[in-house]
């Protein structure tokens, strides 16, 4: 905080009021409500609700469909995070090295950041369409009869590719800025000591990038869990059926289509705990990063 601060009996409260009002009505209230609803069994026709304790959680966690969704979400998250991070790192390293056209490469590799997930999802659906999709044709020529929405594996494949495509730019931006902040003196010293560029990367540059990498890992996990909603929704064309879906999508389907308010709330609370842990972990990482500097 500042050494010099104003003091005024009303002004600071007035300045905070809009933010606090919005936080109270649209954040705290619904968050508390989600936790409360998870302990109740709501009548689907709106005739009150009964307290059932941890019953909703028990039902959710023992449900085989929930387990399947959780397993898919885990695999999906790992694949999306792994591929978007490694491809972005490769591109960032190359973009940091070249001299000619560095600016153009940077622009060409980051602009997809601005595209919304559902728009990316629509493109994914079109590119892998049975009838008009060029990538389906390519797969067919390789002997793979790719059917999105019919074969669960193929649906998952398109989801992962689309999600990776959409996420590479963010990772690229952060990796590039991380690489550019590696001090010149360190790079030169390393260049004198070690001639192999590959070895220099793994022993000097990569460890220096580790804090950025950890930070991005959390960002990517959060992305794969939550922000891919639009991609999933478009790729399954709004009709999950037996297609693979993520946990957040299941909260939406159960709550808004299935009218299972208690179950959906219990799932929300489970996700809340997950995000909470991720965020706490992230803040600890950031603190450690500050200590390094």
């Amino acid at each position, binding site marked *: 905080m500042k050494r010099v*601060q104003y003091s005024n009996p009303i002004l600071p409260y007035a300045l905070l009021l809009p933010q606090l009002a919005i936080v109270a009505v649209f954040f705290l209230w619904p968050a508390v409500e*989600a936790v409360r609803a998870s302990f109740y069994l709501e009548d689907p026709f709106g005739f009150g609700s009964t307290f059932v304790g941890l019953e909703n959680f028990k039902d959710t966690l023992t449900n085989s469909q929930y387990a399947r969704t959780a397993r898919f979400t885990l695999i999906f998250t790992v694949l999306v995070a792994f591929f978007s991070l490694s491809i972005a790192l490769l591109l960032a390293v190359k973009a940091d090295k070249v001299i000619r056209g560095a600016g153009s490469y940077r622009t060409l590799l980051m602009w997809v950041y601005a595209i919304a997930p559902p728009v990316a999802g629509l493109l994914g659906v079109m590119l892998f369409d049975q009838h008009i999709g060029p990538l389906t044709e390519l797969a067919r020529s390789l002997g793979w009869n790719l059917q999105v929405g019919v074969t669960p594996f193929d649906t998952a494949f398109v989801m992962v590719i689309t999600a990776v495509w959409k996420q590479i730019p963010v990772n690229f931006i952060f990796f590039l800025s991380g690489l550019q902040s590696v001090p010149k003196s360190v790079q030169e010293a390393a260049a004198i000591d070690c001639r192999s560029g590959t070895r220099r990367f793994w022993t000097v540059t990569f460890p220096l990038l580790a804090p950025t990498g950890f930070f991005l890992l959390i960002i990517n996990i959060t992305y794969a869990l939550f922000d891919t909603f639009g991609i999933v929704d478009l790729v399954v064309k709004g009709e999950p059926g037996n297609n693979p879906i993520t946990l957040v999508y299941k909260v939406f389907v159960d709550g808004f289509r299935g009218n299972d308010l208690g179950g959906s709330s219990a799932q929300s609370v489970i996700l809340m705990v997950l995000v909470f842990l991720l965020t706490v972990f992230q803040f600890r990482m950031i603190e450690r990063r500050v200590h390094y500097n």
Partner: protein
Amino acid sequence: MKKVQLLDHAVLILGALFMLVPVTLAFMTSTHDAMSVYKDGLQMTWGGHFTDTYKTVLTEASGFTKSVTGLTMLYNSMILGFGFAIGKIVISMLAAYAIVYFRFRFGVFFFWVIFTTLLLPLEVRILPSYEIVQGLGMMNSYSGLIIPLIASATGTFYFRQFFKSVPDELVEAARIDGAGPVKFFIDILVPLSKTMIAAIFIIMFVYGWNQYLWPTLITTDETFFTLVRGMKQILAVWVGAQIPETNQAMALAVLAMLPPVVIVVIFQSWFVKGLVESEK
């Protein structure tokens, strides 16, 4: 050495193409007519029907939606993008100013209350949020669309970080000159924050424009549809059609991408700086 450089360029060009080709296909396809796309698949060349397609999707309430034109959706997207960005910046600057520059009762407590919003994204409290907005009668309204999205305190944190880095001497000097808190804020702090405001504006505009889940729930009336929210309707109609108007679907997708992409590309350096700095 020369050979290594060549390999680097090859990798980068491959990456750039990976990013570029899907969107180019979308755009080129939108310049064809429905029948030729139906027969020959997505297109990689100019089709010559650019004006027809875009005129139809912008001005006619055709196929994909019953009552709205692309222009209405574009307008709604603009309102969501600008409304969200401006609302967020104003509210979070005021809050951050109070937190950093004032000593007052419960200041720390309020800071932590706002801080908690970073812990839970909208997606995990979506059902009760929806019920509350419905209860308040804010369904199918711009305020219902925008205000709940502002609840997350990201902006407040960006500005808090920035204000903390502003030298203390400025406040001292302002006080000696007899400038009160309001004058200091308007005449010194806001002008100092210009670049920061611009960077956050870009990030927030893109974020607001690209919202999907929340608009899907809150707007059931087509006249409030944004382009991004309309994607699902577009796909649903496209899937159900005899000869799908792929060119028009792609044209709407291009319109949904264009404004945020243009802003990000033009103000690239601000945007990158804002993104990287804000996460520290």
